[in-house]
């Protein structure tokens, strides 16, 4: 053959043709499988939400059960306002169901205590109606998604609150790359079950009184007291701020919920056991629950008013 395989021109031509062919074939594969992958992802999401309210489902019946159990899908903004409520079939792309909280968290990682990075985000709530297994009464539950960071990568979950928005009904967590046998245990039943045992969140009054104890400046105290009236909870974030999470400040304020260190026998009602050997993952769970609850409590309090 007359072509010199070692010439620069040949090498370039070969590379260009190769890249175009490979690019085209990958794009085709990706496009043709996209629908299927999307529906897999939303089935998984439905299963997780149902799991948080204690309902087992699998990929084949997830959609059916989801429509039966989840009666409303709500979204609201950072200030707990401008809510949208949907209750019919999931159709349009702006449905609260399609809010990708993990993607939102990834591109708006908290850089300050009150997560101002999330100012432009919307937050979803899934309102579920289930039968209480003990009393057979129907219960209305608010399932809220939470996302945060574990030791190696993202962790996320769903927390189901009873309609007082204070008691926890159930929870389900998952992770991407936590250490197997240690942090990865957050997706196991033993960890999520510990949330079911009549755990309640600390009330704002409790949180305020504890926070006031730690504050020394009169101005700060006044801000906190005023905030209860105006429903402005920026101070709340301080109780479990990033600094707290990173271990720089330890006993500042009182969080909604804490994950206790091992060996703590007497547990408050707002504490669950952490995972031995998975301290950073457990702390991550605590941080993500509290950071999200601070935002959701704005909405809940405005609704209650």
């Amino acid at each position, binding site marked *: 053959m007359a072509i010199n395989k070692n010439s620069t021109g040949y090498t370039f031509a070969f*590379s260009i043709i190769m890249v175009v062919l490979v690019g085209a074939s*990958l794009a085709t594969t990706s496009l043709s499988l996209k629908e299927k992958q999307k529906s*897999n992802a939303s089935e998984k999401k439905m299963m997780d939400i149902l799991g948080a309210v204690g309902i087992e489902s699998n990929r084949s019946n997830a959609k059916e059960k989801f429509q039966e159990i989840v009666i409303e899908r709500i979204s609201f903004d950072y200030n707990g306002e401008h809510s949208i409520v949907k209750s019919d079939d999931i159709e349009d792309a702006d449905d609260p169901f399609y809010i990708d909280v993990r993607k939102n968290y990834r591109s708006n990682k908290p850089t300050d205590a009150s997560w101002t990075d999330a100012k432009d985000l919307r937050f979803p709530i899934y309102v579920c109606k289930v039968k209480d297994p003990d009393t057979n009464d129907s219960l209305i539950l608010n399932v809220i998604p939470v996302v945060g960071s574990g030791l190696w990568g993202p962790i996320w979950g769903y927390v189901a609150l009873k309609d007082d928005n204070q008691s926890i009904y159930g929870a389900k967590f998952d992770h991407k790359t936590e250490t197997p046998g240690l942090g990865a245990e957050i997706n196991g039943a033993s960890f999520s079950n510990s949330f079911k045992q009549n755990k309640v969140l600390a009330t704002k009054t409790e949180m305020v009184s504890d926070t006031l104890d730690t504050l020394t400046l009169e101005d700060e105290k006044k801000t906190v007291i005023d905030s209860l009236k105006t429903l402005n909870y920026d101070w709340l974030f301080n109780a479990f701020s990033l600094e707290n999470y990173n271990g720089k400040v330890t006993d500042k304020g009182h969080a909604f919920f804490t994950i206790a260190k091992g060996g703590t026998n007497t547990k408050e009602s707002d504490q669950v056991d952490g995972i031995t050997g998975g301290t950073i993952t457990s702390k991550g769970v605590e941080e993500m629950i509290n950071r999200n609850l601070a935002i959701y409590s704005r909405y809940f309090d405005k609704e209650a008013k």
Partner: protein
Amino acid sequence: MSTENKPSKKESLFSKKNRKLLKDPLGDSNPITIQVLGICSALAITVQLQQAVIMSLSVLFVMIGGNLIVSLLRNLIPDRIRIIVQLVVIASLVIIVDEVLKAYQPDVSEKLSVFVGLIITNCIIMGRLEAFALANKPGPSVLDAIGNAMGYAWILLAVSVVREVFGSGAISLPGMGQVKFFNADSSLFFANGGFYEHNNLMILPPMALVVVGVIIWIQRSRNEALIED
């Protein structure tokens, strides 16, 4: 010896030489136990049989595809960029596998997570492309790919069966899910007054190394020629 010693113009696809390509990697030149390649994934994803099956099929597909494509292109690939070309071929095949798994085996795909992507860096594949496919015709190259992928696969399957049976008391196959041998409230279990407990150590990565080690031990005690000084 062989019945046809004369060099024939067209070698049969299943000549003795070609059969050797298929057979050797299963035993005396096994990529995992003898060449000790591709160990990382072998240790990481052998907790359940279904993961090992899917992983083996993925590697089989990537190896056959990679060997075939590179062998077909062997006279066209410029020498100076041959490694890059091999990488591109492997990487695109792996991405296709990953996408297909996400669409049709979402649960297994989640468990395999990064390890599907890491097939790209699996030394077995790169090694076979460089050592075999670049210098051989497509037919033998495909046989070589099947041989090596099967050599990888049977170790994976063996290790995962041992680990799943003793670690979780169950066996799982793709599409079937995990089948447990006993219920959690079975009276055989220690917690319920019995004598049996799942061996949690089996689930942890070090045990994969031990099981692979046992296979290597058995293999070398049967064929002492494999023992190095």
